[in-house]
């Protein structure tokens, strides 16, 4: 029948037309490594200015380098642009011997670049996030081209950890900018010059960043010709690209891990997040003044059950802010799940009069499906002992806007579910727990004032003997365990997935993306 034939033909032509419009995508060559290096909580897509970076250090460290850096286990700080360093006994003078290296434009790297960078990082007009962290730096001296001496006005046990995040910048390229101009300069995203194994080629807005090998890198010419950092709106999109074979690496949520485990073409990389998750008690509301109430919260939550069922066992219960063995002393209260004890403690504390079953907002910025399940489990467990929490999930800017407001409404966040970096430098918790860090000085937004905790932190921060440092932080742990400024929950593992074609690839789920010595010059893509 002609009409039927014609209509079928029309449909066929439409279908074929759509299909023919889909030629295979242009293939990348074998020496190009493509990944979602800024996906996940450690990433910072779209930020190119290392002075203003609060994350994304995994990627920044592919073309910029710091003086010193963490090793890939995040257990020790080792040399990067500095081949060696020495510290005086008083911990106030750091002497660095510099590597012989050239910038990506061929100009020599010298001690003047280090001095320039440190001074720039201390200048708030550049939009730096280092100004306060480098506050103890009193002078930077350059006795010769290969030596830098940084003097501090007082010991700072976190100084080297701060230096790991400070990427060294070229004086010859940036000296002509005023500090204010640097804050908004397009130089960072158009033609930045570093000393890393790869040099910047281009940034295609919101799509990808492309780097090419630095032929004369001091540790050898990179094995790959190019490294491309693709941008994704979310982790799910990156996972799709990985499964489609378009990228060779991305961070993945723990829910995605089973889809990759045991598959020959993928390798799952697992590591500790160095972020302790906690229920934070807002001390500006009357609910949590009595330590017995805070203890009841700990006893009421079966943390191990949540870890086993919702994290697949890939988390470590935390009885203080730390889980690293050297920082956790013997004899801590493990707060084993005991709802009866929780109820008894609440009764002793007169919880019925303090709050009873009135709803308490549990605010969080964690918005993954896994976090939703965790919140639901916590809500159910607390409800069993008579604490009625109502989870409220908001996006990160909203969360930060609430907790860091100049005049916060404390009733908006009587209880929070949050996380804070607890390593590799253990002093990271100080800003959220020390009484001296109450806003505006620090980020103790829960207004915690517990003398024992504060004294323990102060002693640890002032410790100049590295051998004693762990013992000092054990005291912090003890104080946290006894006083419970937070109901510490766990330190969860985080995951990345790489193609098995990717060789000698190093990735660690470090907070803010590290940095750490990942040696991108060794990364290679197997045919």
């Amino acid at each position, binding site marked *: 029948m002609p009409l039927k034939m014609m209509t079928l033909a029309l449909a066929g032509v439409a279908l074929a037309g759509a299909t023919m419009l889909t030629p295979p995508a242009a293939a990348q060559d074998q020496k190009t490594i493509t990944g979602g290096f800024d996906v996940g909580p450690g990433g*910072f897509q779209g930020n190119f200015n290392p002075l203003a970076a609060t994350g994304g250090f995994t990627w920044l460290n592919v073309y910029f380098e710091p003086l010193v850096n963490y090793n890939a286990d995040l257990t020790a700080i080792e040399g990067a642009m500095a081949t060696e360093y020495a510290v005086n006994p008083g911990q106030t003078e750091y002497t660095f011997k510099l590597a012989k290296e050239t910038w990506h434009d061929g100009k020599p790297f010298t001690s003047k670049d280090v001095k320039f960078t440190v001074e720039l990082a201390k200048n708030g007009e550049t939009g730096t996030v280092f100004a306060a962290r480098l506050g103890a730096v009193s002078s930077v001296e350059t006795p010769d081209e290969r030596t830098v001496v940084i003097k501090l006005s007082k010991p700072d046990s976190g100084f080297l950890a701060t230096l790991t995040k400070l990427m060294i910048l070229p004086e010859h390229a940036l000296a002509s900018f005023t500090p204010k101009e640097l804050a908004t300069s397009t130089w960072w995203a158009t033609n930045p010059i570093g000393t890393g194994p790869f040099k910047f080629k281009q940034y295609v807005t919101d799509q990808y960043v492309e780097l090419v090998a630095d032929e004369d890198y001091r540790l050898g010419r990179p094995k790959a010709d190019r490294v491309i950092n693709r941008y994704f709106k979310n982790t799910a999109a990156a996972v799709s690209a990985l499964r489609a074979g378009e990228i060779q690496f991305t961070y993945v949520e723990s829910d995605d891990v089973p889809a990759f485990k045991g598959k020959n073409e993928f390798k799952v990389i697992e590591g500790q997040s160095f972020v302790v998750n906690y229920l934070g008690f807002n001390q500006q509301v009357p609910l949590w003044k009595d330590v017995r109430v805070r203890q009841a919260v700990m006893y009421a939550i079966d943390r191990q059950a949540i870890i086993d069922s919702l994290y697949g066992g890939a988390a470590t219960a935390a009885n203080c802010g730390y889980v690293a063995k050297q920082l956790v002393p013997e004899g801590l209260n493990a707060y084993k799940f005991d709802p009866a004890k929780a109820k008894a403690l609440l009764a002793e504390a007169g919880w019925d009069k303090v709050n009873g079953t009135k709803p308490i907002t549990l605010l969080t*910025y964690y918005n993954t499906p896994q976090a939703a399940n965790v919140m639901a489990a916590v809500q159910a467990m607390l409800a069993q002992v008579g604490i009625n929490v109502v989870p409220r999930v908001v996006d990160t800017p909203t969360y930060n806007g609430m907790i860091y407001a100049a005049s916060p409404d404390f009733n908006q966040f009587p209880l929070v579910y949050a996380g804070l970096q607890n390593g590799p430098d253990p002093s990271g918790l100080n800003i959220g727990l020390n009484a001296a860090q109450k806003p505006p000085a620090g980020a103790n937004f829960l207004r915690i004032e517990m003398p024992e905790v504060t004294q323990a932190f102060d002693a640890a921060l002032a410790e100049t003997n590295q051998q004693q440092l762990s013992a000092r932080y054990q005291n912090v742990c003890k104080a946290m365990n006894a006083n419970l400024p937070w109901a510490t929950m766990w330190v969860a593992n985080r995951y990345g997935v790489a193609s098995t074609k990717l060789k000698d690839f190093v990735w660690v789920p470090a907070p803010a993306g590290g940095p750490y010595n990942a040696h991108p010059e060794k990364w290679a893509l197997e045919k």
Partner: protein
Amino acid sequence: MLVALSMLVFVLLRLAPGDPIDAYINPNVAMSQAEMAALRARLGFDQPLPIQYLAWLRAAVTGDLGYSIQKNGVKVLPLVLERVGPTVLLMFLALVIAIVGGIAAGIISAVQRNSATDVGCSVAAFVGISSPPFLTAILGLYVFSVVLRWSPSGGMLTPGTPFSLSDLLSHLVLPACLLSIGHAALIMRYMRASLLEVLNQDYVRTARAKGVKELWVIIKHATRNALLPVVTLIGSSIGMAVGGAIFMESVFNWPGMGLLLVNAVDTRDYPVIMGATLIIGACVILVNILTDVAYALVDPRIRVA
């Protein structure tokens, strides 16, 4: 009108919780309020709101919409303008596919009324109309990119490769096809209903009685007349396609206005939100003016009134 729009957007943005600095902070890596205050001061957010607005307006009237806070000083105007092209391209192809596919399926369904083909097309149309863009986008991505690997999973061009038309098309076809589904389904239903009505008209019966070939009756006599309500629908589809494009651009990382705006809202990038809204508003006003002018040209009664 534009000043009122900009003022409204400015006030709404400031009422929303969180600002660009709040979006900048990784909550796992804390920062002090003093440091945040210094960053705010550098960006001028410590000034009273009227002063902030007037400063923005003063620059905007000279064509300077400021720079993106989250994109290292990139100027807003070129940033927004460069995103118009990709969005138009995506919407244009989606509408072409929707129009061609929808009309073709509508004709087939109407001509073969109550056949298996008609039922199949109708069921497909109902599914298409009922499927929200974010669902079709995610399902399409999974099936065609991850499982079948027929299409790239996102982006506009393969990173690091020179521009080629085939590469662009390979990235464009899947999001465009998925964006077209809802529109094609709607057009198909309208076309089918409209054609069925026309096929019962006397002039169609007359044409058949005169011995005109059936194909010719359908194409020349019936379809042309049945297209009138469909054309009206297509006009309104353009507006709806903008909403769908935002989802598609987010899922497929298509660098258009939608993705730019969603990212800007996520990061509270005030200058980009203000600039993009202003330009979209200007476009809408311009289109409305052009429409009014066109009406006046077409219908003299309007000019008289």
